[in-house]
């Protein structure tokens, strides 16, 4: 009845999509052209090596970068005359006051007390009670144990600070994001306006948000909260809108035909039916906020990010691993509790269960209040005791494991490292960074036209122009090289594991939980094992990027292959295809779009990690951003590097998206992309 109830699709594309293979003629020839363009690049790169590569020494500055460096001072001077800047100042002050209040409540000494208002026992008890109320007793146990571990690992204060920043950002996100999401869900015009903005925001690596924030806000907890909330806002908006929109049209029609007004529709139908999805959005927002709150240590945000960065900078694997472990525990706790809460939100309790629940919660509340009072009275219940100390032994263990690997397995790790460095990384870097800029730029433009069509040409020209304008062409090419290498490795891994998972239920059941857990860990943490194995090199960043990007890429590949119609697979089976033939002739070709989407996502994840990898020896753009924080005179260069990162990210995203969904209008394509991703994470 599709013609009856919905506006019919325009004739051309709809019919085209229904006929499967004949359309493939186009893409096939397209890939030959792509290979041709690449071959031209390779051939020309030999005679032209070292010509017009636009290098810029580490401490040199272009005029533009100098101008950017002075921008901060100019803004500082304009502060008194500009109402906007004063407004921002006010916002910053309010946020800071609230943050300080919360910190004194649970993490920092509340003057004149030597300890926070509520000691560890009180915080632990209240957190456990909240988990009990929203997610059940299992999650309450998990929460209690997690909080105890924060203390025993020796990072109680930092953990509480991270929670303060995360929750302030999330609270503001929800207040802003849910109404915007509702608006988007109910108005197609709002969707058309907001979607591209969200797409853009979600394309950017978390790292680039940091430096610009310092232009407008002085570093500290307020800047941390604000940068975190900007980063965490898109998921809640998108998923809320998705929830509102996915209420079935028939339900909406049924309600309309009963005479429901617009506001009744929202209150009685759309919001209740989208509730579970919205809670999933809250989960996504919390996870995004946690990962950003960690990185916000660069803008002097309090919390676990600081010890991690410090330890990484001094290559102290043990300490980095311990603080990282706290982050992992926190991530898993937050993820599990909010997921359980969303599942509970649709469960139907019996009357007896309801009564029991009220009694249990009341008793729990009394206990929690008692704990709070006790923790205010007794010092050992206020300040987390030194014993039992799990942090020191764990740090030692991590150190030992790390040195075991570097001492005994260095042959293996170095072998891998050297093979990939000399076999793939170096040649590619020579090709991209040592060839004339115009040759590489022309290649990129040609590729973007071939892969994503003529419409992407303008985007690519602008992006390349911006890269040149920042004066960081060569650094950009180095970062691009690392991104490409890591993406290739990630996709190899994703194809192998994804296909394997899609074939076997047992494999899926054993791997998927690991991937789920890996996806909630803040990206920062992945640098720790990578540095433990490979030391501070470009390669470390690539490994970390692979580890970080693999879960999402593997899941997308697996789901894409699963999505191939079982009837077609059965038909191929009954025609006598063997397993390998089914995979290569049926599943992979039919899952091509999904695999392209996995590549797109994998590349964005890789990119954001490669940038962070500047911290551990990856150099290039990421390093320049880090240097922008630490060296005042390089601040402008850091900002320029941030701009270059944005341009690269947009160009890569457009190109990768084009390969998956050419011929479709842009809005549709990106919506379906994010819709699929949000389904995946939900």
């Amino acid at each position, binding site marked *: 009845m599709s*013609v*009856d*109830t919905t506006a019919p699709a325009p004739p051309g594309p709809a019919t085209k999509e229904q006929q499967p293979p004949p359309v493939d003629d186009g893409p096939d020839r397209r890939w030959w052209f792509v290979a041709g363009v690449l071959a031209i690049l390779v051939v020309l790169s030999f005679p032209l090596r070292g010509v017009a590569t636009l290098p810029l020494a580490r401490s040199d500055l272009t005029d533009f970068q100098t101008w950017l460096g002075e921008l901060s001072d100019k803004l500082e001077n304009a502060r008194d005359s500009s109402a906007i800047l004063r407004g921002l100042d006010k916002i910053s002050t309010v946020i800071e006051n609230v943050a300080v209040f919360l910190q004194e409540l649970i993490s920092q000494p509340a003057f004149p007390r030597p300890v926070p208002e509520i000691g560890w026992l009180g915080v632990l008890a209240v957190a456990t009670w909240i988990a009990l109320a929203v997610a059940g007793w299992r999650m309450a146990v998990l929460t209690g144990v997690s909080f105890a571990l924060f203390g025993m690992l020796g990072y109680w204060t930092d953990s509480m600070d991270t929670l303060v920043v995360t929750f302030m950002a999330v609270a503001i996100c929800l207040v802003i994001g849910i109404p915007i999401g509702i608006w988007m869900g109910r108005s197609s015009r709002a969707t058309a306006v907001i979607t591209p903005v969200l797409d853009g925001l979600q394309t950017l690596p978390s790292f680039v948000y940091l430096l610009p924030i310092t232009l407008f806000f002085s570093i500290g907890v307020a800047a941390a909260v604000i940068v975190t909330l900007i980063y965490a806002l898109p998921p809640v908006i998108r998923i809320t809108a998705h929830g509102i929109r996915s209420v079935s049209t028939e339900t909406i029609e*049924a309600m309309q*035909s*009963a*005479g429901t007004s617009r506001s009744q529709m929202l209150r009685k139908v759309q919001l*209740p*039916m989208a509730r579970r999805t919205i809670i999933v959005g809250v989960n996504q927002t919390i996870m995004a906020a946690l990962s950003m709150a960690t990185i916000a240590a660069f803008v002097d945000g309090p919390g676990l990010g600081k010890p991690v960065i410090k330890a990484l900078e001094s290559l102290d694997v043990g300490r980095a691993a311990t603080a990282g472990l706290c982050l992992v525990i926190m991530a898993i706790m937050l993820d599990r509790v909010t997921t359980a809460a969303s599942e509970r939100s649709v469960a139907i309790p019996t009357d007896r269960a309801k009564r029991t629940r009220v009694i249990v919660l009341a008793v729990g509340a009394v206990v929690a209040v008692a704990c709070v009072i006790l923790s205010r009275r007794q010092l050992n219940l206020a300040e987390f005791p030194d014993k039992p100390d799990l942090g020191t032994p764990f740090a030692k263990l991590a150190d030992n494991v790390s040195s075991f690997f570097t001492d005994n397995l260095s042959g293996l790790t170095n072998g891998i490292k050297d093979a990939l460095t000399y076999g793939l990384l170096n040649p590619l870097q020579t090709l991209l960074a040592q060839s004339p800029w115009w040759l590489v730029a022309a290649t990129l433009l040609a590729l973007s036209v071939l892969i994503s069509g003529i419409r992407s040409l303008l985007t690519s020209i602008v992006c390349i122009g911006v890269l040149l304008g920042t004066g960081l062409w060569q650094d950009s090419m180095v970062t691009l090289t690392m991104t490409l290498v890591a993406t290739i490795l990630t996709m190899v891994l994703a194809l192998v594991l994804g296909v394997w998972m899609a074939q076997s239920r047992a494999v899926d059941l054993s791997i998927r939980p690991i991937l789920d857990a890996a996806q909630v860990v803040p990206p920062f943490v992945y640098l720790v094992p990578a540095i433990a194995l490979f030391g501070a090199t470009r390669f470390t960043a690539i490994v970390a990027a692979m580890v970080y990007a693999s879960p999402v890429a593997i899941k997308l590949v697996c789901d894409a292959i699963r999505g191939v119609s079982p009837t077609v697979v059965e038909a191929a089976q009954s025609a006598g295809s063997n397993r390998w033939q089914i995979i290569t002739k049926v599943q992979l070709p039919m899952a091509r779009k999904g695999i392209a989407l996995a590549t797109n996502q994998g590349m964005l994840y890789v990119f954001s990690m490669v940038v962070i990898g500047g911290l551990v020896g990856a150099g290039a753009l990421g390093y320049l951003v880090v240097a922008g924080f630490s060296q005042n005179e390089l601040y402008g260069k850091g900002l320029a590097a941030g701009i270059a990162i944005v341009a690269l990210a947009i160009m890569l995203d457009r190109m990768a998206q084009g390969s998956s969904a050419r011929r479709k209008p842009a809005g549709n394509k990106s919506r379906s992309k994010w819709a699929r991703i949000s389904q995946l994470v939900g």
Partner: protein
Amino acid sequence: MTDTAVKVDDLWKVFGPKASKIPGSPDGALSREELRDKTGCVAAVKDVSFEVKRGEVFVVMGLSGSGKSTLVRCLTRLIEPTAGRVVIDDHDVLKMSESSLRRLRRNHVAMVFQHFGLLPHRRVIDNIAYGLEVRGVGRKDRHARASEILDLVGLTGNAMSYPDQLSGGMQQRVGLGRALAVDPSLLLFDEPFSALDPLIRRDMQNEVIRLHHEVRKTMIFITHDLQEALKLGDRILIMRDGEVVQVGTPDEVVGAPADGYVRDFVSEVPKSHVLTLKWVMRPPSDGDALDGPELPPTTVVQKAARLVLDSDKPIKVVEDGRLLGIVTDEDILRVIVAEDTVQESGAA
């Protein structure tokens, strides 16, 4: 109050760019494919007119894509019609303001949907009371009314369940209850039983017949199932590609199909269950004995068969004391055994 519950005149619904230009223009006369190729528009409902009498069960039948669901949605402007006129209870629906349209939907017209459209987060009783709730009826009153309806639609004892805990048939009873609870003068059904198993579908059809006898509401019933249409409908409207092909009583549709399309449709129907003697009788000729038993022309062939076959003389078809024709064993057998020939005798 007139005797007409619903009157639809020249109703159009065109999807696509500049849809409003199509009705009445030369393009409007094009076939669906031609129109789509030429203008990119699809005429889902094309110049449809019909009248529904008060208390009648009016069935709209067609295959998927025939525009029947769009048509029923146009009646209360769930889909905004492109052109035409819809009059329900003497109100011109297309001229109504947003708020009077809402009043119409709240008080006069209720609809039952194919996939039920229930609210999963509400108990059965609150689903049934929904229409009253948006109308502003207090909780106690609407629950009292909903309880009555629960009994009426055979859901006694299920008030506190949630929709997901019920079977499909039971869920549709909730949908039916929700529509009945507001005591509407017109009930719209959009393929309400298509998603149900055949046995349950039969139960629900009987349920609708029973309810119609009890509450005597005007009903417009959309279906793609000819059996269902013949079983429920006082009159049937057959649609194809958005256009009306034929409107008539079940025996008219089966006995005198308007064109090859309808004839194809009804060819599989056991005609003896639908056709009346009116359709099989022939004028008496000279040698016929005219002292056999009498039957009215509205008797269904199947019911008359025993009597005709038992009698050795032709049966007289008599209306108001007037002899209309006679029916012999051969006429009956022709319907039951050789269905094909019915068309000729029906056309006669």
